[in-house]
């Protein structure tokens, strides 16, 4: 187990290194000059040159990348070009909001997705099963931008149940969490349905029936725990997709998270912020995957860590 963990951690570091290299390279070759964003439209050629030299952006790619990496290992993520603030400060200020929204969003997608999946599995082949699976298809395919605006319009503007965007109280989190959760719920309902159908076919369920247990007891005590665990183990892998959704949902709802920060930074080529958010996100995905792999054998002993 220890050897496995060590190996996985080394792999994770290599993955992060790769992510940082690729992102840095893409930003380097991007036909957009961060110095011009900093210098603005009235700057003289000399001002532009001064800024370029001060930021070291006149250096060759590998020198720039090496400088960034050596800062990073010392815990220095650099300073935002435009906000003139430490990137770590900017991310730290916004991370709690993102984590809260992620947590609430994951709860939403599980609650909606798992219950849809279970009901569909129990009514397999019936009209309600088909209706639920069509609903899940719609949920997966609907653009999050549209879903967000629809939720906002119906529940906040027309019905007035929730605030129109913003951050602060529990009622602020409901709509963005729902907007995030709806997409994921489509995936989870399908996974839950097939997992449940799988379990219901197993011998031990037939045995339970043979013992004369009630249907509800069989479903809740025997089938559900077995069916739900592999689905829940997917959460770690799901985080990457989830992060993509955060950028959209945070922008629409004015949610002060790192997705919004990244979106604004990308538009203005604020490289240190883009790098910082990318790496934090990559870390989250790597950790999520690692946890998923560690948890899987605990849930299902048939899976072995190698």
């Amino acid at each position, binding site marked *: 187990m220890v050897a496995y963990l060590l190996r996985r951690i080394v792999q994770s570091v290599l993955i992060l290194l790769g992510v940082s290299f690729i992102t840095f390279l893409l930003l380097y070759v*991007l*036909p*957009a*000059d*961060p*110095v*011009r*964003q*900093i*210098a*603005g*439209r*009235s*700057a*003289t*050629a*000399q*001002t*532009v040159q*001064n*800024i370029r030299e*001060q930021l070291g952006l006149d250096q060759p790619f590998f020198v720039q990348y090496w400088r960034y990496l050596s800062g990073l290992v010392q815990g220095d993520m650099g*300073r*935002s070009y*435009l*906000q*003139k*603030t430490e990137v770590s*400060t*900017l991310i730290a*200020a*916004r991370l709690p*909001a993102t984590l809260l929204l992620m947590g609430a969003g994951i709860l939403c997608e599980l609650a909606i997705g798992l219950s849809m999946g279970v009901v569909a599995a129990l009514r397999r082949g019936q009209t309600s099963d088909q209706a639920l699976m069509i609903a899940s298809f719609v949920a997966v395919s609907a653009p999050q931008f549209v879903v967000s*605006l629809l939720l*906002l*319009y119906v529940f*906040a*503007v027309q019905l007035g149940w929730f605030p*129109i*965007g*913003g*951050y602060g109280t529990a009622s602020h989190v409901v709509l963005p969490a729902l907007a995030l959760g709806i997409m994921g719920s489509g995936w989870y309902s399908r996974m839950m349905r097939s997992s449940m159908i799988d379990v219901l076919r197993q011998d031990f369920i037939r045995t339970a029936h043979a013992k004369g247990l009630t249907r509800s007891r069989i479903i809740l005590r025997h089938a559900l725990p077995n069916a739900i665990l592999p689905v829940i183990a997917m959460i770690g892998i799901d985080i990457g997709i989830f992060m993509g959704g955060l950028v959209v949902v*945070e*922008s*629409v*709802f*004015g*949610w*002060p*998270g790192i997705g*919004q*920060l990244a979106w*604004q930074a990308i*538009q*203005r*080529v604020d490289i240190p912020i883009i790098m910082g958010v990318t790496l934090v996100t990559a870390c989250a995905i790597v950790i999520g995957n690692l946890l998923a792999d560690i948890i899987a054998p605990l849930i299902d002993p048939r899976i072995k860590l190698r």
Partner: protein
Amino acid sequence: MKKILCTTALAFSLTMPAFAEDYQPDPNAKPGGGIVITYKDDVATLDPAIGYDWQNWSMIKSIFDGLMDYDPGTTDLRPGLAESYTVSDDGMTFTFKLRGGVTFHNGREMTADDVKFSLDRVTNPATQSPGAGFFGSIKGYDAMADGSADNLEGVKVVDDGTIEITLSRPDATFLHVMALNFASVVAREAVEAAGDDFGKQPVGTGAYKLGEWTLGQRLVFEKNADYWRDGVPYLDSITFEVGQEPVVALLRLQNGEVDVPGDGIPPAKFREVMSDPAQAERVVEGGQLHTGYITLNVNTPPMDDARVRQAINMAINKDRIVQIINGRAVPATQPLPPSMPGYTDGYAGYGFDPEGAKALLAEAGQGDGFATELYVMNTDPNPRIAQAIQRDLADIGIDAAIKSLAQANVIEAGGNGSAPMIWSGGMAWIADFPDPSNFYGPILGCDGAVDGGWNWSWYCNADLDAMATKADAITDAAKQDERMQMWSDVYMGVMEDAPWVPVFNEQRYTMKSARMGGADALYVDPVSIPINYDYVYVTE
């Protein structure tokens, strides 16, 4: 509709004190209350040497003051921290007498040392100020810019209440430069204590001080009770909520949660708002010093032929483009916007004439047309405008492929000369100060036609450059008409060579909540965009 008058003549008076009578604030204004303003993008910094964004420009104006200022809602210069000034006979030395008893937000009295410190700081390359170049006419600027001096030779502290600024060349726009945010006076000790974080902990002499800043969420400005201008500001606090999509901000305004959506009315909602009388009456319309244009790269054949560029000018149906943006603009005939001094009245520009354009193309040997590319920023309504331009060009046989890219990529393509044509929407020039010279150098002059510059036409006419330099050397107040005539001639020369298609001058529309009071001009202030925070008030 408000017409904004521009009087620059005041600025050039050689005697003191030569200002018109003081601006009279609204007698009905009552102090108290707070308002909520929203913005989509984060506020990057409140450092006056750095901030150069749509959203932080007016915020910085309310936290800091400079030696010069403008009457609210107008482009008329008035004294700010300077009580008065004198100019030497040769127009090269300005002596500013500072107001006494002005204190920074930290309680210390502002002195001439702070003024010098602030000007030295903004021109110091280490500050990375995007506005450093505005101070190019101050003696010793070049030594600052190349790092060989650590302070401006031309800025001298005479005594605590007097500062003398000597120029290296006559500069008719100097007083406007001293009214720019970049010339704001900062408290030396606060800058030294905060270091690079001064932009997040600003200390100035302005009407408001920064109360709270929760990164990525909100900023709260609090009234500066000791403000040196009597009676203002009226509001106790202003809350700026950032990260709000314009559509969401409008919904919140309709719901009574927001007082002014800082990014304006979203284009997609404009008609809906204007067709509802209750909402339309809360929209204030005003001009702005803006021109939207198409740049024609004079280095890209066949557009190196002026006849081809003139033909393109004649091919564009500007009225239809104005319709695309719901009539939120007036068609342009020349680079300068109509409210700018130096605008050539009565000049009709190139009329819409596709047949004439075709004939001119044929004369230039391009009768069969040619293929080119039109770069455009990828946010609404710019791609739609680009499509209209594309159709107009197709009518005279020019096949323009649209390249719709993020702003930074379009700027790059313009600055390195790879873009044959660019529609300026979303990046168009808005004047920093109301003077015709501000519309020339970087975007039409030879200085801007360099790698990384903003002259995307790569147009460089040495004769016009010389005339521009000559015009800006006229500092004599009595000769201002002559100066404006020279500027008018410069822009007429530009139109003859046709490196641009001036398309329209955008109008501004600011929406406010029902409880907001104050003259309409304050809501379309040409200098404090979107609104003049110091003079507006709430009625409940």
